[in-house]
C-alpha cells in the first residue's frame, strides 16, 4: 500500500487556550512552525489546504485562502474543507489527493479557531426546520448526548463515574508537560468528583471545553521527502472520512431520533471510521502503538478504545483501571493529554492529533513519549455524519 503514502515533513502548533485573538494569527504561527520544522521554504509549498471555521466570519469560510494570503501570496493553489470536527482530516485528505495525483509535491495543511465562551448554541431566529434549533428548543444540549452514551455504558457494562474520572486523571497526567496543552494540572479523582454535575453522570471535568488554537503540517510525496534528505519522515498510511451507513444506531447530535432500522440493519458509525483506516493501511489494531481519540467526554474515550478494536466491547474501563492506556502501558491513549487537556478547537483538532503522533513516532514527545512507538492512529467524530481516522507510520 506504500504507493498511497505521503510524508509528514514538519508539524507545528499554536498553544491551545482562550487567547481571544483572531484565528488567523494561530494558523500563521502553526504554519510557520511547521515550515521551520520541515526545513521547507514557503515558496516551495504549491497547495494550501485549510480547515474551515464557521464562527469567524467570511475569512473562516475560505480558510485556505486566508492563511495563504497571511503567509504571503505566492501563487499556490488553495482549498478549504469544512467537515465539523473532521475538517482538519478532510483538508489533509485533499492535500494527499493532490500529492498522489502528481499535481504537487509539497502542501501545507492548517486549521485554527477562535471560540466563544459557554455552551455552543444555534444561530438566532425561529427556525423549526433546523434540527439544531429544534433540539435546543427542547432543552437538549451537547452534553446531553455525551451523557446518554455514558449512562448507556453504566447500564450495559457496569461502568461507574469513578471509571470516567480515571480517564480525566490519566489524561491530565499525560498533558501535564505538553507545552501546547491549555490545562496543565494533575487533577485527582477527588477533583473530578467535586466538580459540578452537568448532565448526570457527567460532571464539568468529564466534559471538554472549547478552546482557541492552531495546528499545521507540511506534507509531501515520498520522492520529495527523499530528495531533501527526509526519506525516514513519518508517513500517512490512511485517512478515513467515511459517512455513517443507514440506519445509524445511535442518536447523534443534533438529531432528536435515530434512523428507523425497519428496512436496514442498525449500524454503529464510530467503529466504521477506524475500520476503513485499518483496511486502507493494510494493518490491524494489533499493530497500533498508540492512539489519539476524541474525548469530548471521559466516557467517550472508553467508547473509542473499543471502536478502535484495541480491546473487546465493555472492557475499556478495566483496561484504563489497569493502567494499560497510560504512557508506559500496553496501548497508551491520548498521550498528548487529549481534549481533556486541550479543549476543542474544531478545525485544528484532528490535525493536532496527527501532530502528536508525528512527534511520538520521531521520539520527540519528551516526558509523555511512548517508548518504541511505530504506528499511531487518530479517531474523531463531529456533527452531521462527519468523522475521521488517520494512521501514521514511522
Amino acid at each position, binding site marked *: 500500500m506504500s504507493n498511497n503514502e505521503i510524508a509528514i515533513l514538519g508539524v507545528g502548533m499554536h498553544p491551545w487556550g482562550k487567547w481571544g485573538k483572531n484565528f488567523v494569527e494561530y494558523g500563521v504561527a502553526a504554519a510557520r512552525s511547521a515550515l521551520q520544522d520541515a526545513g521547507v521554504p514557503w515558496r516551495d509549498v504549491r497547495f494550501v489546504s485549510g480547515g474551515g471555521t464557521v464562527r469567524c466570519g467570511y475569512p473562516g469560510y475560505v480558510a485556505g485562502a486566508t492563511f495563504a494570503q497571511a503567509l504571503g501570496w505566492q501563487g499556490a493553489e488553495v482549498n478549504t474543507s469544512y467537515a465539523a470536527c473532521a475538517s482538519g482530516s478532510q483538508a489533509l485528505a485533499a492535500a494527499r489527493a493532490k500529492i498522489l495525483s502528481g499535481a504537487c509535491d509539497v502542501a501545507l495543511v492548517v486549521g485554527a479557531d477562535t471560540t466563544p465562551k459557554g455552551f455552543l448554541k444555534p444561530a438566532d431566529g425561529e427556525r*423549526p426546520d433546523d434540527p439544531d434549533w429544534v*433540539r435546543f428548543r427542547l432543552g*437538549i*444540549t451537547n452534553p446531553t448526548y455525551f451523557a446518554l452514551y455514558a449512562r448507556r455504558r453504566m447500564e450495559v457494562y457496569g461502568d461507574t463515574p469513578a471509571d470516567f474520572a480515571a480517564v480525566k486523571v490519566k489524561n491530565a497526567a499525560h498533558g501535564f508537560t505538553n507545552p501546547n496543552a491549555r490545562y496543565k494540572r494533575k487533577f485527582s479523582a477527588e477533583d473530578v468528583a467535586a466538580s459540578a454535575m452537568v448532565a448526570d453522570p*457527567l460532571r464539568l471535568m468529564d466534559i471538554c471545553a472549547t478552546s482557541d488554537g492552531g495546528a499545521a503540517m507540511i506534507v509531501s510525496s515520498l520522492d520529495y521527502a527523499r530528495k531533501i534528505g527526509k526519506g525516514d519522515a513519518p508517513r500517512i498510511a490512511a485517512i478515513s472520512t467515511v459517512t455513517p451507513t443507514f440506519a445509524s444506531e445511535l442518536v447523534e447530535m443534533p438529531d432528536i*431520533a435515530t*434512523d*428507523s*432500522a425497519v*428496512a436496514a440493519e442498525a449500524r454503529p458509525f464510530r467503529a466504521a471510521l477506524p475500520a476503513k483506516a485499518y483496511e486502507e493501511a493494510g494493518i490491524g489494531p494489533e499493530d497500533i502503538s498508540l492512539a489519539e481519540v476524541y474525548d469530548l467526554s471521559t466516557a467517550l474515550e472508553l467508547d473509542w478504545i473499543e471502536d478502535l478494536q484495541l480491546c473487546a466491547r465493555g472492557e475499556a474501563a478495566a483496561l484504563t483501571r489497569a493502567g494499560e492506556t497510560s504512557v508506559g502501558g500496553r496501548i497508551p491513549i491520548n498521550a498528548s493529554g487529549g481534549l481533556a487537556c486541550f479543549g476543542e478547537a474544531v478545525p485544528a483538532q484532528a490535525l493536532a492529533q496527527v501532530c502528536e503522533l508525528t512527534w511520538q513516532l520521531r521520539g520527540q514527545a519528551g516526558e509523555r513519549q511512548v517508548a518504541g512507538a511505530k504506528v499511531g492512529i487518530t479517531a474523531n467524530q463531529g456533527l452531521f455524519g462527519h468523522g475521521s481516522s488517520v494512521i501514521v507510520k514511522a
Partner: protein
Amino acid sequence: MNAPIIEGLFSVDAAEPVLLGSRCSACGTYYFPKQSNYCRNPDCDSERFDEVPLSRSGTLWSFTNACYQPPAPYVAEEPFEPYAIAAVKLEREQMIVLGQVVKGVGVDDLAAGMTMRLVLEDVPGVDGERVTWKWQPVEGA
C-alpha cells in the same frame, strides 16, 4: 390546551398524545420528525410517505438530566429547575426518540429497560405557556 412548543411534531390530545411521524410507502422506514420528500434508505428512492402516529410507549435506552439552563431558543422556568431527559426505543419503529421526562422524576428514579409512555406537559414559551411531549415511567410495567 396550550399551543405546542413546536408545530407539527406531536398531536395536542391530552388523553392520547402521539408523536407525528411519517413512513416511506415503499420500504416502510419511519421518520421523526416527519420526512415527506425523499427516503434516506440508500436502497430506496421513494418520494411517497404516509403520515403516521408513532408508538406511544417504548423501552428506556438511556437517560440523563440537564443541571444547567440551556441557551435560547430554550425557554426555562424561573427559577430554573433541572430536568431529566430520556432516550426511548420504540419497538415497531426500531427507532430511539429523545424527550424530557415528566416533572418530579429524576435520574435516580430511572433504569434502562423501563417502559416509558408519552404524555403532555405544560412548559414556558416566549409569549406564554406551551405544551410539549414528555416521557413518563409506567408504574408496575
